[in-house]
């Protein structure tokens, strides 16, 4: 029972997202002449918010938590609703609602915006399904449910060369990594004989118990795990499958970039957190000589360093944000890279990574939506083009400054706490080197983030007429940006419940 309702209602947040997408598609198909951009945006925003509200209700009443009877499993345990799933669903629903609200103004003159809204909601449905997946088969299907709409969304401006090119690149790399991921799953199945996460884990664990377990098949399992890791790296835009991200984020319409770099990335992490803790527990994997923790550690270090250094040399703000998002994937990877077999601080560090992804969902989405606003105004793409924007748009520029400082991890904003807890969590678990690399990268990042702030507030416009193109006030975009900024600030005093929920959610996995 879920709050007195049948157990299947535990999927309410997922279903709300999915049905809203279907409803939009239905209305669009039945009466294509009566559709209006505004009503579509309102309906999809309501759908996303309803899903968020349901998630918040479930979290606050403890659905799926250890205190309230543990995780709820459905469909022969293929689906598992626990606090971590709800936590991630909250991230997806928040980002989705911000993005659809902003898209209302961004696609104001697009001929067929309904497709955008329904595709976004379908992708969000896939993400939240990914969060509840308890079997490798469901993981793969949900992953494809996220990927397929995403390819279309990136290429959504089909008259725009950059958008189409980005979509093609994303699709090619995505198809390749899907194939690798699927092959990895089949190898794990070959080695362990099951797709259920818990069964895979018990076969791996048999080694420790002295029974046969994997036996000579540990090499096959190891190869499979590495391939699954590759799929995760693609979805989270981490090294070595990161190189689609700068092109895709830069070429895609800015709201789509926001959606992909925040929600889709978080979806990749939910796979990593769930699959690698529940199917391949650290202790069992290590005794089977499959050291994926070290692999993640190296990937995390390389990813954050590469993302930061590449971001520092960019001339276009959107591309800089794309690389910064790679850097942040590196930070969040600490959540799986700083795990130890004895498990003392495992839930703390993974909880911190989850909290970081939540904060990141607001600050990064907000930053990309500011870029969306700049594209709407037509002010250009480089740092120089942003010069003096604060004079014409002080509120939006202040919000952007909040996002930049928070992404850099400066204390007055939520990004400080989430990064701090992540790094101390790693140190407490014995991974001082990862925390040190993270901290150094964090300092470097201040350079390129503050460049944006400097351009907005301190630099003079290139010419006195440079800002004259700012003649519209896109209300919905403004609302989304300001809301994201307020959330980024308020998550600092309100960080307590977030980190506690995240930590409790993570502790259920170990």
């Amino acid at each position, binding site marked *: 029972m879920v709050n007195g309702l049948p157990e299947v209602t535990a999927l309410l947040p997922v279903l709300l997202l999915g049905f809203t997408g279907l409803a939009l598609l239905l209305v669009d198909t039945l009466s294509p002449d009566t559709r209006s951009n505004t009503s579509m945006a309102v309906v999809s925003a309501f759908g996303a918010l309803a899903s968020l509200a349901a998630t918040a209700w479930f979290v606050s009443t403890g659905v799926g938590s250890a205190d309230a009877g543990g995780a709820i499993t459905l469909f022969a345990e293929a689906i598992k609703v626990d606090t971590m799933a709800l936590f991630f669903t909250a991230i997806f629903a928040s980002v989705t609602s911000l993005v659809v609200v902003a898209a209302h103004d961004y696609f104001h003159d697009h001929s067929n915006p309904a497709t955008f809204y329904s595709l976004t909601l379908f992708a969000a449905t896939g993400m939240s399904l990914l969060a509840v997946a308890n079997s490798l088969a469901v993981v793969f299907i949900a992953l494809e449910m996220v990927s397929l709409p995403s390819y279309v969304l990136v290429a959504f401006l089909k008259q725009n060369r950059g958008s189409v090119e980005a979509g093609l690149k994303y699709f090619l790399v995505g198809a390749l990594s899907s194939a690798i991921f699927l092959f990895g799953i089949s190898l794990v199945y070959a080695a362990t004989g099951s797709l259920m996460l818990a069964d895979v884990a018990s076969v791996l664990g048999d080694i420790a118990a002295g029974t046969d377990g994997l036996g000579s098949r540990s090499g096959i399992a190891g190869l499979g795990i590495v391939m699954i890791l590759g799929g995760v790296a693609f979805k989270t835009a981490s090294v070595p499958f990161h190189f689609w991200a700068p092109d895709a984020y830069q070429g895609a319409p800015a709201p789509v970039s926001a959606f992909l770099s925040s929600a889709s990335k978080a979806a990749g992490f939910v796979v990593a957190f769930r699959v690698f803790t529940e199917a391949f527990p650290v202790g069992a994997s290590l005794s089977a000589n499959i050291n994926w923790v070290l692999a993640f550690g190296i990937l995390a270090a390389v990813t954050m360093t590469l993302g930061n250094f590449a971001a520092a040399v960019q001339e276009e703000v959107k591309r800089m944000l794309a690389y910064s998002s790679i850097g942040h994937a590196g930070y969040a990877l600490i959540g799986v890279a700083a795990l130890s077999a004895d498990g003392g*601080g495992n839930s*703390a560090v993974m909880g*911190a990574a989850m909290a970081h992804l939540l904060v990141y969902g607001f600050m990064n989405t907000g930053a990309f939506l500011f870029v969306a606003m700049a594209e709407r105004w037509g002010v250009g793409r480089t740092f120089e083009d942003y010069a003096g924007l604060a*004079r014409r748009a*002080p509120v939006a520029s202040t919000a952007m400054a909040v996002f930049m*400082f928070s992404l850099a991890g*400066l*204390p*007055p904003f939520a990004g*400080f706490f989430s990064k701090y*807890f992540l790094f*101390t*969590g790693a*140190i*407490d678990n014995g991974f*001082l080197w990862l925390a040190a690399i993270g*901290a150094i990268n964090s*300092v470097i990042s*201040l350079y390129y983030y*503050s460049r944006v702030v*400097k351009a907005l*507030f*301190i*630099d003079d416009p290139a010419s006195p007429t440079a800002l004259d193109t700012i003649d519209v006030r896109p209300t919905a975009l403004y609302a989304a940006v300001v809301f994201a900024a307020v959330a980024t600030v308020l998550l*600092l*005093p309100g*960080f*307590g419940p977030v*980190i*506690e929920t995240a*930590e409790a959610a993570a502790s259920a996995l170990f």
Partner: protein
Amino acid sequence: MILEALIAAAFLSALLVLLSPNEWAGRLAFALSLIPFVGSLYLWSGFDGSGNALTGGDIAYQTQIEWLEFGGRSVSWFVGLDGISLPLVVLTTFLVPLAILSAWTPIDTRQSQFYGLMLFMEANLLGVFTALDFFLWFVFWEAVLVPMYFLIGVWGGPRRKYAAIKFFVYTNAASLLMFIGFMSLTFALGDSVTSFALPEITGAIADGGLGTWFGVAPDQIAMLAFLAMFAGFAVKVPIVPVHTWLPDAHVEAPTPVSVLLAGVLLKMGTYALLRFNFTMLPDQASALAIPIAAIAVISVIYGAMLALAQKDLKRIVAYSSVSSMGYVILGLVVFTEYGVGGATFQMVAHGLISGLMFMAVGVVYNATHTRMVGDMAGMADRMPITVGILVAGAFGYMGLPLMAGFAGEFFIFVGSFSAPALPYAPVFTGLAMFGIVIVAGYLLSAMQSTLFGPFELATDYEVGPAPFHDVAPLAVLLVAIIVLGVAPDIFFEMIRDAALPVVEGVSING
């Protein structure tokens, strides 16, 4: 709850002023800034604290509310006042209205943002001086940087971009160093602390709670942490050789910003040194007494010599701040009642005097549009009142008896001359005293060539007396300086009470 109300009032005022129209932002900001001032007078009148807040003294106006918990340690909203912080709170709330008043003439663009940022900075400064939880304190500490960066970068002089970035980079790098130092302490304390409350951490260190961490022995950790924190705070103070950001920031900053920068922001550094380095790790401080005293004396002499070589009035005052801060460091390191107490008193005295000097130079600049010593002469002729106050302030700087500067420096010298904790104390004191002679030299010569003699200034307009709202804050400051010089006990009593436990904390005195 009065402290909270005070900080909240400053935050709300900042918000209100930010949203107000430019035309009356200045007046509104001044009126609103009187609320914290009156509040701080109320705090002063009802002050009932005794001892030092960190060493188990009675904390006045204390509130402690848990904020969040992570890894076994809680972070809380923990504020309160003792005899060291109250004078600095009063200084802050007293200087801000005066600085706002002095901004009415020079600030003529984007006023609402300017005054909003000033009040925002005040709120955070109050937080820095009242917070007793490390995290809370650090959030406020860093939050001071952001408005300062904008205040210099947007409203500054011709090289404002360079100065703002330099300020930002220097102080942020310093904060990071200090943060790492403090964190290594808390990690080494391990389970002997359960929160980030400064009194608890101070107590645990005094009780020998430091353990071995990552193979480093407790003594070495304490020493490394001391050095990291000292280096971090030294930038803020600033101490030679990390002072170079200060003249740039001062010269480019508009007058009211310089007033707060010299009057309050530099005190953040000395306040933090006193709280963290000298109260928490007294034995490390006394082990390093000779090098620290040497740095202090070098700051005094070298700062004064640099001032001697300057032609820009503002640069002269800026470098003499470096010199004055050297006295504060000397007072702290000798670990005597009068030394530590005098250093704290000198913070307040220097805040008032340097505020007055910057303000008076600013008023002269408003009329002449130059600050170069060679460009003008005989200003006393045209602006007799302003010049009179400027001369009086300069005498305060030189340590004229019955003015606050004399009391502060006198206490420090009395305390340092025969200090048991500092070998060769008379030598250091004698050398430092020599600094006063140089101060007198450059201030007198600069004033003689600019203020007296026949009037000379190449302008195409008539130079007349400054408006009332420019002169009034100068007069108020002068009165305060004299009051504090005549009756130092109004602050010194409580300062001494709070300084005594610090002095007794060092084993050579214990």
